[in-house]
């Protein structure tokens, strides 16, 4: 299985993602934002970080970078695209995913472990994961997902809500909403479920000594479902 991680100027979770993908058997390649095209891949990942210094608006400049056209073409032809954190922000800025990511409710950067509830119905991303709730990690300043009521309804109708912040036992309540996201949304799919954007970082949770290794479920399932 071949994966590509795109490096934008200011990306800083590119190495972590590379380590995680390789650990679970992907043949990963790093792709520079200025490259004309992406080498043949089964999966493209837009990693976390501060692409272009978050200037203008998080993800907005990356969404206009040279490589992004290939990412959009790949996604539109059904290819699997993952955006984590800043990658999620970029996917939203490209229009591949709906909504907006606002500054966190208490106007602070938040770095902590969170529990998220997975929507395992339709997508390859979570399908065979045994658990319903994973302990992952967030580290962001602008992860407060927002969209209009109609759009929320449309996300729900199309089963596009991928992950919700929740309690240890899967309770999706305001108490477990770290950043003010509407309906505790931590990540969403596109309609076809081949694109996922989410704020939590599974790649930081792949070793028991890193306070959780629930990220393993994500990557193990991913490579299984791609084979």
């Amino acid at each position, binding site marked *: 299985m071949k994966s590509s991680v795109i490096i934008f*100027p*200011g990306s*800083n*979770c590119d*190495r*972590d993602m590379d*380590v*995680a993908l390789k650990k679970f058997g992907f043949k990963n390649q790093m792709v520079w934002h*200025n490259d004309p095209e992406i080498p043949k891949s089964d999966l493209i990942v837009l990693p*976390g*970080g*501060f692409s*272009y*210094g*978050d*200037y203008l608006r998080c993800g907005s400049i990356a969404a206009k970078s040279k490589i992004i056209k290939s990412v959009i073409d790949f996604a539109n032809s059904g290819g699997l695209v993952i955006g984590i954190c800043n990658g999620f922000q970029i996917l939203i800025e490209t229009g591949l995913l709906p909504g907006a990511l606002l500054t966190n409710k*208490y106007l*602070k*950067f*938040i*770095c*902590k472990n969170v529990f998220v509830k997975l929507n395992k119905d339709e997508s390859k991303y979570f399908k065979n994961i045994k658990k319903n709730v994973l302990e992952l*990690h967030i*580290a962001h*300043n602008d992860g407060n997902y927002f969209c209009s009521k109609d759009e929320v309804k449309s996300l729900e109708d199309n089963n596009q809500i991928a992950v919700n912040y929740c309690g240890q036992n899967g309770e999706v309540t305001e108490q477990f909403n770290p950043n003010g996201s509407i309906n505790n949304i931590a990540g969403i799919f596109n309609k076809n479920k081949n694109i996922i954007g989410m704020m939590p*970082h599974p*790649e*930081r949770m*792949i*070793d028991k*000594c*890193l*306070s959780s290794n629930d990220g393993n479920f994500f990557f193990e399932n991913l490579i299984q479902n791609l084979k």
Partner: protein
Amino acid sequence: MEVNEQIAIDHGLKKEEFSKICDLLKRKPNLTELGIFSAMWNEHCSYKSSRLHLKKLNTKGKKVIQGPGENAGVIDIEDDDAIVFKIESHNHPSFIEPYQGAATGVGGIMRDVFTMGARPIANLNSIHFGSPQHPKTKNLLRGVVKGIGGYGNCMGIPTVGGQTTFDESYNGNILVNAMTLGLVNKNKIFYSKAAGINKPVIYVGSKTGRDGIHGASMASAIFDDKIEEKKPTVQVGDPFTEKLLLEACLELMAGKSIISIQDMGAAGLTSSSIEMASKGNLGIELNLNKVPCREEKMTPYEIMLSESQERMLIVLENGKEAEAKKIFDKWNLDFAVIGKTTDTKKIELFFDNNKVAEIPINILAENAPVYDRKWKKTKLPQKIKFNKDDFKKLKITEVLKKILSLPNISSKEWIWQQYDHTVMGDTIQKPGSDSGVVRVHGTNKAVATSVDSSAVYCYAHPLTGGKQVVCESWRNLISCGSKPIAITNCLNFGNPEKEKNMGEFVECVEGINEASKFLDYPVVSGNVSFYNETKDKGIKPTPAIGGVGLIKDYKKMITMSLKNNENLILVIGKTEGHLDQSIFAINILNEKKGPPPVVNLFNEKNNGVTVLKLMGEGLINSAHDVSLGGIITAVSKMAIKGKKGFKLNKLKVLMNKFDYYFGEDQGRYVIEIEPNNLSKVKNILKDNSVHYDEIGIVTENEIIVDKEPILHIDELIESNKNWLEHYMDK
């Protein structure tokens, strides 16, 4: 403009210093030259008040690859790996403009580390604010934390540890010290010493603007009412550019084209160019028209003194310019050949085809003034006779809850949750522990690091305080199972022209030195910040010590969280019940006098080495050093971390229980062991003549002390967690 004495004084130089300049040059300097002198001869760059004393520091050791004098210190962590690390202050700018001041402090220290070829792997900080009631404290804290996070998070370097204190002596002068560790192959370290004549001098990074002009001189001045007017001298940081600069520099360093490299920190282009030439015993010639400028019509004076951030100066091998430029083009950074090395041993500056400055390098560097300032010894205060009858109305558990919620003891989660502490995927011990621990990427090794200071002890008796803070750093590293290797120090003091303040400095340094020698824990880098004084009121002496230790197998790392019910809790080291200067005395009894706890270096070392031995044998389940608040505060913090309770035995020693539980004697640890390991542990402790007390056991969630009402661990968690959150957000 003709330079005269008054202009020199306005530049922060003393009358005598100006006449020395004229004597050395055998003429009056022009304005640009005067600016250069003022930048090189201020306290911040020249260490003129501290140099004599810093020379005495213990800086050598088997593991030291590079001691003080370079951009940062370097230590050997085996297998060709080395750690580059340093701590630096950014106090004055942070008080004037907390966000930018703190952010550029973090940016500056990271540059010091990657200038040497190391990729930064961990950040820490030691930040000190005025009383929580002071009207400025809240905004300063908010701004500083946002600034530190803003820079480090964007760079993608985890902030793994730190320290925050509140004390009214910082009301008009907060302290912001930032520390960075980087990882480098020990055969690929880069230094600032230039070599060879006619080698191109390259400027890379951000463009030069008018920001930060005279920043280093400002850092060497006392504050007054007009300090707000100095806002324009605070630099503005751009972590995005620094991230690009980091990647571009490391890419260039992978090749063989760099002769020497130096970041432009305090006093910008001036100090970086002079330092490189001075170390290489060379001259340097710069054409200032070639310097990439952000603003129009900048003068040579402004270009030389700007402290714009994210810039580096490189001396390249001849003919490597094109290859190097390609890398910086890729990262969209400026790259300009702005001069060359010469054999004149002078700095010569050209602008619009005129020579605008010419100064022999040795005058600026070696001939910089050195002062043997007068200083006064601080007498050891008399011990306080506490009236033990006063204790009778107190309950241990009530006092404990109160102590856990004090500003200086309470959890700092509100702060470190704003720092990305997990990026890079190697953080195995997070902030809020004795030390932050990061794995050495791709190996079984891990590096433990912490930063400590004890201003209260240092103020009461600087010599003891200096020793104590080094010992506390050593204990923090040992508590997580690492072998301490070396330290970096950030010496924050008041006005060196005052005998009392100078005395505090001299004696703290002496104390640091003594402990450092005894523990074989050398100082490899550091920074001095004097003139931390506002309107005649100085700060408490606050040397901050950053320590680094090595864990050979990270799976053997120890944490402080209590693990299993019925496990035994032991205190290692002797408890005498020293209450003077303790949290209990100051905050509960309101008694601020008396001497700090005695530091016995022999016991400190013996206890620490023995604890490491127990850890090596796999006999310790959790450990924590005993510091502020004494034994019971230490055990409580372990319980809070592990979400467990504890039951204390009836005291076996003949001592008042408040003395025993809240005394702050040094050289002690609390450890948790399994009951069936007790005899093994006892034997090792006895063989090494280490005193220990069995004080209690781990429980599921109840805190049981004598016949006092039982507490639930959640109550302690609440007491500890709430103060800062409420203070900042509610």
